[in-house]
């Protein structure tokens, strides 16, 4: 296993949130991420796909060490991130960077671009003084912006340009991994394509690996090497992008692919009347919507099993 250059690995990562049902209702726990074990190797684009509420962002936040898991562990280069020393954590923060969905919310409106981009250098005391300006200019050039832009403020930029600035900030400390949480979702198609090209170029130039989170299957198929499909907090299928999209095994993967608009030769959607009385936490979470379901699917949880070089969690495949 260690022959492949493994950067991030999760083991049984789980996160629960407690919620109150109604104003005075009882407390309940929701398992947002349930026992997820995946690994990201160097030079790889690993994508998580799934619909809203499937737990992909919660998973990313735990990987980034921004949220404590309820159970399970995250390893960075073989080391448990929860047991990091201060120095190791600092190194981790430098090597693993993040780009969020909303470039409007991720830049401080009162901070000039220079200030935003020089901050990582200052925090990690890497360069100072005159060299700082050069480094910021270089960063801006590397994401297709002009060095003159550094004196401006976020409101002077369009959404696509702001996302470039966020990417520049993530690149500042020469990271090894970039976690990109829906980085294209708030952008127009022509700008999406520009950013996708940029991410591809940067990957080559700086030897980056990505943990890429998206709900857009066309983008995921295009951009990733390896894909994990999430449903209700669990990985239901995982494999190489090509195989997974060409011949999905799990009925949910198939449903996702068929639902994605503009697919030629579409088969009719798998549809099934919701089984209203079904309680989620015993059997397969996809049971109420599944076309292949059998009785035991409602009482027993399928686990991820190896199958033709892929992993899939379903009794019926």
């Amino acid at each position, binding site marked *: 296993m260690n022959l492949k250059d493994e950067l991030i690995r999760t083991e049984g990562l789980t996160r629960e949130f407690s919620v109150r049902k109604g104003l005075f209702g009882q407390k309940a726990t929701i398992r947002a991420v349930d026992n997820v074990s995946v690994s990201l190797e160097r030079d790889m684009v690993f994508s998580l796909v799934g619909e809203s509420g499937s737990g992909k962002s919660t998973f990313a936040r735990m990987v980034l060490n921004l949220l404590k898991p309820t159970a399970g562990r995250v390893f960075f280069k073989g080391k448990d991130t929860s047991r990091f020393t201060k120095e190791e954590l600092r190194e981790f923060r430098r090597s693993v960077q993040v780009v969020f969905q909303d470039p409007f919310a991720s830049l401080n409106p009162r901070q000039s671009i220079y200030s935003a981009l020089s901050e990582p250098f200052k925090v990690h005391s890497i360069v100072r003084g005159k060299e700082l300006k050069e480094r910021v200019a270089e960063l801006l050039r590397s994401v297709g912006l002009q060095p003159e832009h550094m004196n401006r403020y976020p409101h002077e930029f369009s959404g696509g340009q702001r996302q470039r600035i966020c990417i520049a900030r993530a690149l500042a400390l020469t990271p090894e991994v970039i976690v990109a949480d829906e980085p294209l979702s708030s952008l127009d*198609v*022509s700008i999406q*394509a520009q950013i996708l090209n940029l991410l591809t170029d940067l990957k080559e130039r700086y030897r980056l690996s990505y943990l890429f989170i998206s709900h857009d*299957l066309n983008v995921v198929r295009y951009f990733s090497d390896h894909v994990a499909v999430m449903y209700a907090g669990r990985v239901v299928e995982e494999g190489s992008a090509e195989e997974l999209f060409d011949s999905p095994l799990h009925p949910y993967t198939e*449903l996702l692919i068929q*639902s*994605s608009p*503009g697919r030629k030769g579409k088969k009719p*959607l798998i*549809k099934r009347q919701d089984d209203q009385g079904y309680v989620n936490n015993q059997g397969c979470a996809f049971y109420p919507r599944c076309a292949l379901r059998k009785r035991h699917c409602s009482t027993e949880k399928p686990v991820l099993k190896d199958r033709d070089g892929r992993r899939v969690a379903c009794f019926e495949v």
Partner: protein
Amino acid sequence: MAIKDPLSSENLLLSIKDLDIYLKKKHSQVNLVNSVNLRVNHSEVFCIVGESGCGKSITALSVLRLLPKNLTASGSILYHPVSSNLLTLPEQELLKVRGKEISMIFQEPMTSLNPVFTIGYQIEEVLRLHEGLSKREARQRATELLQSVKIPEAHLRIKDYPHQLSGGMRQRVMIAMAIACNPRLLIADEPTTALDVTVQAEILDMLLEIQATRGMSILLITHDLAVVEETAQRVAVMYAGRVVEMADRKGLFENPRHPYTIGLFNSLPGRGKKRLNPIPGTVPSPEELPRGCKFSTRCSMKLKECEFREPELKDTGENHLSRCIRADELKG
């Protein structure tokens, strides 16, 4: 059935003529939509597609005179069944059209539903107002409507408040409300953008089914070419407040004849890992549009002439309109 000419006048339901929309500022006004001409026929799905800021949504809003106060529309919007210009119709008359003849659904169903009334009450309100139904009749019809938009156990759900429903269910309720009075035209402004793909597919299928069974027309506003491909009979592509290309779906998807439309197609990730070829640059702001062709600053086929003279929207054959002087070269 004989093939009807898509542009014959008997088919006409709505025609937008020379529509201009201005944003009033303190000492100036900014042109946001510039002489848009389009027509929607009976029982047709017509799509307007374009990126944010191209003017597609405000064009749709102007049809029902729902523009925010700082925007003014001029030109004419003829609604043929009552042969009147919706832009100048007295408010009292307009109320009879809005919601009854033409209704509208929006992107975010939560902001369009009133959180303090049950969904049943909100659908019944439409029926009592426009159709003069009694309370009991209205409840009966509202239940049927919820069934027709495939809400399970409609008789129970009717007592729910909007927050008790998921996003997809709320959009179904919006659609039920919009079709309550059997409108001839449904304007749908990005109806599935806020929804997950599997829900989006269900809602689109359902809209098309309703459209076909009721013989209704849909004016669909979207940024997503894939949605257009699945739904439209005819399409207008907008850029910088102008229609740059208009054609039937087949024509547009098989042989786009404007560099902007081609650029949009090239921006979509396809099957292979081939590098994408996106449109360079960004959309200019409406206050700083170039003098000639508005797309000239980003166009890969630009000629000297394009910088000075804005091309007209011309028929390039087979009712395929393009606003490009080199459209004939793109014809394949």
